């Protein structure tokens, strides 16, 4: 009898504990604006744990972005978070890449460009950041010379040791005359080649728009992107666009 009572009590308490938490999603949802301390605070507070703090904030940024982009589209704290992460860990290339798209979604293309400029400065041995800067200038830049500036970024990326050969060709294509849709497709293909799942989603949407609707022309347009990325990425892209091999 006593044993049964204790068992009942235990079951009731477990139900309460689990039930309490699973009925809490509204409370658990984050606010669009959060407090972000400055990097110098952490530099002082814990210089030997800078990258760990950067990583923790990076995970937070990914979560914050994912949550708000799907719901209220308010990304108020993205600029502060990206700045904090890259200040604490200037060589965290992934943070620049993800941060760029998060800033674009937050409506801050200028900040995204500044971020990439800083990133390229801090990571001269890395081609991803300048290549992304090239794309950013091409896709969101204003002014007559934007193609030249974008091409310069691609050329800079191509000059990095170990950079894929197609970066150099992208630079050349950009400054050539005509074929704007083809150019745009190539740039987006580069984003697809380099990006995480969020930027790949964006690239697929853009390419879907840019590539011709007619199946045969679409396949031909896609084939032209083959050299802009590694083979397995290309296969992935083909699947994502739903074009048969």
């Amino acid at each position, binding site marked *: 009898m006593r044993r049964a009572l204790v068992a009942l009590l235990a079951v009731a308490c477990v139900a309460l504990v689990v039930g309490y938490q699973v009925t809490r999603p509204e409370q658990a949802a984050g606010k669009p604006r959060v407090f972000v301390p400055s990097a110098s605070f952490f530099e002082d507070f814990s210089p030997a*744990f800078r990258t760990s703090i950067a*990583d923790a904030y990076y995970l937070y940024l990914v979560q914050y972005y994912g949550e708000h982009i799907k719901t209220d589209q308010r990304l108020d704290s993205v600029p502060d978070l990206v700045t904090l992460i890259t200040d604490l860990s200037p060589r965290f290339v992934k943070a620049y890449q993800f941060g760029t798209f998060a800033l674009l979604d937050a409506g801050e293309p200028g900040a995204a460009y500044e971020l990439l400029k800083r990133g390229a400065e801090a990571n001269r041995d890395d081609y991803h950041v300048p290549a992304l800067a090239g794309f950013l200038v091409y896709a969101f830049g204003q002014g007559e010379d934007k193609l030249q500036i974008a091409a310069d970024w691609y050329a800079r990326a191509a000059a990095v040791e170990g950079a894929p050969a197609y970066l150099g060709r992208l630079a050349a294509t950009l400054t050539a005359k005509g074929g704007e849709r083809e150019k745009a497709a190539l740039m987006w293909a580069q984003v697809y080649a380099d990006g995480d799942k969020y930027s790949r989603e964006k690239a697929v949407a853009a390419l879907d728009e840019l590539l011709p609707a007619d199946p045969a022309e679409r396949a031909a347009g896609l084939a032209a992107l083959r050299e802009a990325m590694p083979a397995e990425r290309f296969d992935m892209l083909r699947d994502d666009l739903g074009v048969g091999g």
Partner: protein
Amino acid sequence: MTQVAAIALNTFRETVRDRVLTVIALFALLMIVAGLWLGSISLEQGGRMMKDFGLVAVTAFGVIIAAFIAATLVRKEVEKRTVFVLFSKPVSRGGFVVGKFLGLAATLGVVVGGMGLFLFLMTLAVGGGASGMVLVATALIYLQVLTVVAVVVFFSTITSAILSSMLGLGVFVAGQLSHNVLSLSRIGAGAVTEAASWVVFVLIPNFSAVDVKAAAVGEQTVDWGAVALWGVYLVAYMTVALIGAAFVMRRKEF
């Protein structure tokens, strides 16, 4: 020398058989495995997250184990009066302190080394490059943990076990902030403050001079010269703390 070795072996056996240690070590491994989950939400940055948070876990658990076991090393022997057995035999007080330290150093070598190796294998499995740096970082974390042990052993010769543990953890945290103490001397609050902050700066072990985790995740290239110098500094610091502990023990009566 035989005596020191015997005490070290004895201490190693005592501590390594303590169930609390097993529990904490298992918990640490669990934390490292939890890094897999962090990796999965990191947009293909699993390797970096695993390394960085894994090393934080190794540091935290290493320091916690060090602070709590080291405090009982000397204290327990005094409180439970096993020192009577030791010091009624031809065992020098200094030999006792060194033997105890070496024994716990061996235990922590097993624990911290085991955690580091486990993390290394995990990063190999997850991928993400520069995994060998995890082992280098583990070695440097081990040196920091040993420094905490030496400090706690010193405190435990003059105060209670709990207080020694707390002071040890405090010194570890202070060691992370040691450069801040120095900046206190620059705010122009007068000669006394400046002198005092210099004294504190020198007294506290400098744990933030080299960021081993940053090197492991590729944030910094390793300056081997600076790492070696820092290692020598930490060994010297431990030696001073242990000499201090031996000095206090020599003057103690039981």
